[in-house]
């Protein structure tokens, strides 16, 4: 039971919303679509659900072509970023609605709705209208409606984005337990790389309507095939610069010369783009090979246990992320250390040539 997208593309008027894409989602898998707003996550989900049809290409479900099967017949469920519930029905009827449409027996509906409501801690609210619930409860209702009908494919389109921090943390913990299991395919869209890393599963990185890479989440994170994937899958944004490798040195024009260690050692001489994750730039050196760079501090965000510092490196804005609180003076020059051995190198076509695990 797999969902296969074969060379699908979606064009609306002159706009190419989805470029030719192929994806195979295995049964029982948890898949993450990671990308910024407007990268095509929602469009891709609508194509998977059958709400929208691809302009070209085919969609196969369990080996059968389902391009023309209407969404009503597809046994899918979807939860949106906005809390979508039927405002004229109470919570019980909201959860029961897909079962009622499927003409299930009343006793079975009752049993299933109560089970699902219990699972999502909605039992005390069953008689209330969605408008009388908090945001978190409204989203739980929407999730309950998605869960109750035992669908083959569940699409979660940034379901936690509109919730406040505490509720988000709470639901984020429950979510994989709730949805995963059996042979269902779960697709979860998010803009946050951290969320993808927390959930694990598989991640597809999206950029401007293209899937740039798809594979196990940790694999996609550690071994981005190209610069775009590394940029999409990095929060705070990955630091980049044009560099030149010359013998034992890597030179960032006008800024620094660093030793070519780690994977960079075997790199042939030439021009590359370097990609350094923010947590590989720290106020203190951690390895002997760490290279020092000097930058002017622009912004210092000090949150409880972490320091995120934006600094100017010869015209480029770079970010350093480190554990602990490090006092920085805005506008002052500071010395930071780059863990050069763990950086990525991309060639002129932005393909990864060195670095990664």
């Amino acid at each position, binding site marked *: 039971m797999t969902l296969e997208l074969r060379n699908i593309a979606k064009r609306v008027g002159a706009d190419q919303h989805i470029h030719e894409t192929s994806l195979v989602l295995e049964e029982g898998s948890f898949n993450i679509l990671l990308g910024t707003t407007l990268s095509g996550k929602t469009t891709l989900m609508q194509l998977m659900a059958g709400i929208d049809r691809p302009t070209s290409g085919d969609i196969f479900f369990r080996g059968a072509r389902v391009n023309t099967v209407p969404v009503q017949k597809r046994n899918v469920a*979807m939860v949106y970023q906005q809390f979508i519930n*039927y*405002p*004229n029905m109470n919570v019980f009827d909201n959860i029961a609605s*897909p079962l009622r*449409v499927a003409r299930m027996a009343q006793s079975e509906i009752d049993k299933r709705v109560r089970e699902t409501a219990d699972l999502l801690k909605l039992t005390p609210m069953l008689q209330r209208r969605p408008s009388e619930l908090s945001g978190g409860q409204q989203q739980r209702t929407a999730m309950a409606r998605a869960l109750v009908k035992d669908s083959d494919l569940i699409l979660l389109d940034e379901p936690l984005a509109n919730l406040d921090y505490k509720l988000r943390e709470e639901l984020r913990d429950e979510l994989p337990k709730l949805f995963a299991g059996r042979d269902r395919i779960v697709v979860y869209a998010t803009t946050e790389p951290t969320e993808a890393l927390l959930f694990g599963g598989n991640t597809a990185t999206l950029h401007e309507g293209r899937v740039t890479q798809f594979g196990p989440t940790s694999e996609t994170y550690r071994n981005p095939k190209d610069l775009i994937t590394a940029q999409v899958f990095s929060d705070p944004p990955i630091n980049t610069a044009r560099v030149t490798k010359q013998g034992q040195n890597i030179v960032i024009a006008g800024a620094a010369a660093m030793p070519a260690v780690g994977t960079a050692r075997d790199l042939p001489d030439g021009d590359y783009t370097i990609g350094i994750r923010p947590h590989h730039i720290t106020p203190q050196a951690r390895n002997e090979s760490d290279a020092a760079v000097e930058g002017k501090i622009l912004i210092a965000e000090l949150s409880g246990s972490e320091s995120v510092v934006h600094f100017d490196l010869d015209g480029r804005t770079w970010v350093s992320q480190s554990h602990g609180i490090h006092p920085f003076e805005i506008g002052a020059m500071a010395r930071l250390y780059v863990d050069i051995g763990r950086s990525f190198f991309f060639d002129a076509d932005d393909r990864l040539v060195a670095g990664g695990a």
Partner: protein
Amino acid sequence: MRARSLIPIVYILFLLLPIYWLLNMSFKTTNEILGGFTLWPQTFTLENYAKIFTDPTWYMGYVNSLQYVVINTVLSVSVALPAAYAFSRYRFLGDKHLFFWLLTNRMAPPAVFALPFLQLYSAVGLFDTPWAVALAHTLFNIPLAVWILEGFMSGVPKELDETAYIDGYSFPRFFVRIFIPTIAAGIGVACFFCFMFSWVELLLAKTLTSVAAKPIAATMTRTASTSGYELGLLAAAGALTIVPGAFVIYFVRNYIAKGFALGRV
């Protein structure tokens, strides 16, 4: 404090004065009305109201008016619902122009259409029926209803439609079971405005009817000209004419506030 509360009191009195005067007249005899200036009825009478409720030429006026008003409201809103849905959910060639053109229909005074309607309805045998007036009023009310409903519908996220399809609802079932209840407030407001236009519109209603479907407003003006001055009777008829409007407003007052908040009323 006293001076401050005086202003709204004076204002409200000013607003209520014509209504009070109408009621005052309706309980007087015609002789007293013509006789002199009295602040309240000296010889209180219910005869004017009794006459309206017993004489078919009078009470049928209300029946006729309500008939075409109800036909018109139901017709306008039920036609406007799918139209407004299309405008709010789909982009199609010339949609914005069409939407604006619909509204321009309201910019012409009803008098412009009196003659063509009279001729047309006479030719097809609709003259002097409630349908004639109801259909004539849809020309003004459908655009208004589409405009109001489109505003309310655009306030409903399209994800609600999608969720319903995903849950297995067919389009008609979704529209009736979920969408219409969701925009009930908007339908209430649209009905109110259709009702009000149709209820107060005099010219078309008068032109397109003669005897069988004569509306109350026409009865009121004609009686004044044929059987001399029956001012008390006319006042009573006027007072009763206010009632349905007040009744409808009472029911939709909360929805109207919502409509204003959405910027469409």
